[in-house]
C-alpha cells in the first residue's frame, strides 16, 4: 500500500516538477527552433512513456500485493502482448528519430551564402578571425604560432592577407545573416557554447570542425567553454554581440588586419622543420 502510494507520489511529483520547473530552456536567439521543437517532442513522447510505465507499475504493486489468499498467475510468455509492445516502442522510436535526423541534416549543411568566421581557442581565451570584405580565410596551423601570430595564420597563403584578427575583443555578428563558424584550437579541446544559440561544437587541435547558425535577435551573449579544457575551464568566457548591419560595419572597420599585425615579419622565421608535406 505504502509502496504503491509512494510510486504514485513520485509520478505526480515528477510531472508537476516538469510543469512548474523554474529551470527551462533559455530564450532562443538563433533560428534553431527546430532543435527546440525536437527537444519538446522528445519530452512529450518520453513523458507519456514515463507516466504510462510508472503508473502501471504502481497499480501492479497495489493490485497484486501479497495476501494469504493470492496465488500468482502462471504465464511464461505471451507472444501477442510482446509483439504489440515491441511494435509500439518501435513506432515511438521512429517518431523521435526521424525529426532528429532531419534537423541534424540541416545542422551539418551550412547554406552556401553563409559568412565565415573562425573561432580559435587557447587556454583560456577566445580568438576570432574573419575574412576581409569579399576575401577568404587563409590556412592556419598551430606550428605558425608566435607571439606576433597568436592564431598561427599561414603567412604564405595569399588568402591570409587581409584576414581580420580579433585578439582579446568581443565577437560581433550580423543579425539574421547565416554564419558558418569554423572551430580550431591550438592547445586542448574546447567547445564554443552559447546557450541561447542551442548549437555547439568541439574545437579540436590539429583539425577543423564547424557548425552554422543564424542569430535572430540583437543583444549581447555570453560565450562559454563546454569541453573540459583544464583548471581554468569555468573561466574561459567570451562575449558575442549580435547587431544590425550598420553597427557591424562600424565594428569591422576597427579590426586589425593580419598583414598589419605582421609588419615585423618576425613570425615567419618560426616555420618549424617538421619534414615534408605530402
Amino acid at each position, binding site marked *: 500500500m505504502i509502496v504503491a502510494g509512494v510510486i504514485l507520489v513520485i509520478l505526480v511529483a515528477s510531472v508537476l516538477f516538469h510543469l512548474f520547473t523554474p529551470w527551462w530552456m533559455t530564450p532562443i536567439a538563433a533560428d534553431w527552433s527546430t532543435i527546440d521543437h525536437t527537444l519538446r517532442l522528445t519530452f512529450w513522447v518520453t513523458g507519456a512513456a514515463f507516466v504510462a510505465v510508472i503508473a502501471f507499475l504502481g497499480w501492479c504493486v497495489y493490485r497484486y500485493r501479497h495476501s494469504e489468499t493470492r496465488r500468482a498467475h502462471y504465464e511464461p510468455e505471451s507472444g501477442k502482448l510482446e509483439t504489440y509492445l515491441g511494435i509500439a516502442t518501435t513506432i515511438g522510436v521512429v517518431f523521435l528519430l526521424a525529426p532528429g535526423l532531419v534537423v541534424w541534416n540541416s545542422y551539418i549543411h551550412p547554406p552556401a551564402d553563409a559568412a565565415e568566421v573562425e573561432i580559435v581557442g587557447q587556454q583560456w581565451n577566445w580568438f576570432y578571425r574573419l575574412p576581409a570584405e569579399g576575401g577568404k580565410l587563409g*590556412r*592556419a*596551423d598551430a*606550428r*605558425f604560432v608566435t607571439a606576433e601570430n597568436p592564431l598561427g595564420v*599561414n603567412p*604564405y*597563403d595569399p588568402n591570409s592577407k587581409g584576414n581580420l584578427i580579433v585578439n582579446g575583443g568581443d565577437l560581433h555578428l550580423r543579425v539574421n545573416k547565416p554564419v558558418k563558424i*569554423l572551430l*580550431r584550437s591550438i592547445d586542448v579541446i574546447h567547445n564554443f557554447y552559447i546557450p541561447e544559440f542551442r548549437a555547439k561544437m568541439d574545437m579540436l587541435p*590539429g*583539425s*577543423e*570542425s564547424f557548425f552554422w547558425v543564424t542569430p535572430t535577435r540583437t543583444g549581447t551573449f555570453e560565450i562559454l567553454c563546454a569541453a573540459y579544457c583544464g583548471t581554468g575551464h569555468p573561466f574561459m568566457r567570451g562575449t558575442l554581440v549580435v547587431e544590425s548591419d550598420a553597427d557591424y560595419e562600424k565594428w569591422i572597420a576597427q579590426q586589425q588586419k593580419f598583414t598589419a599585425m605582421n609588419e615585423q615579419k618576425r613570425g615567419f622565421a618560426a*616555420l*618549424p622543420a*617538421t619534414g615534408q*608535406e605530402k
Partner: protein
Amino acid sequence: MTPATPAVDRQHSGRLFFVVWAWLFALSFLSWLVAYFGIAGIPRWSLISVFMLAKAALIVAVFMRLAWERLALVFAIVAPLLALVAFISALNFEAVYIHSQRENYQGVKAP
C-alpha cells in the same frame, strides 16, 4: 590418472601439416615478391591482402584446427569479429575526413 586411450581417428598424418607449411612459405614469398618488384597502387594492396588472408585462413583452419571443430565453436569465434568490421570502417571513414579537413584548412606550406 587419465586413461591414455587415443582414438586413431582423431589424428592426422604429418603430411597435411607439411603441405600447409609449404603453402605458408609460398604465400609469404609471393607477398615479398610483390614488394620486391615494387608493384604499387591497387594491385599491390589487393595482392597483399589476398595473400595475407589466405595465409591467415590456412593457419586458423589447419594449424589451429578450427576446420575440425564443431560449428558451434567456429561460430562463437568468428561472429564477434564482426564488431571489428564496424570499427575498421568507422575509423577509416573518420581518418579520411580528418585528413581532408587538415588538407583544406591547415598545413605549413603554401597551398
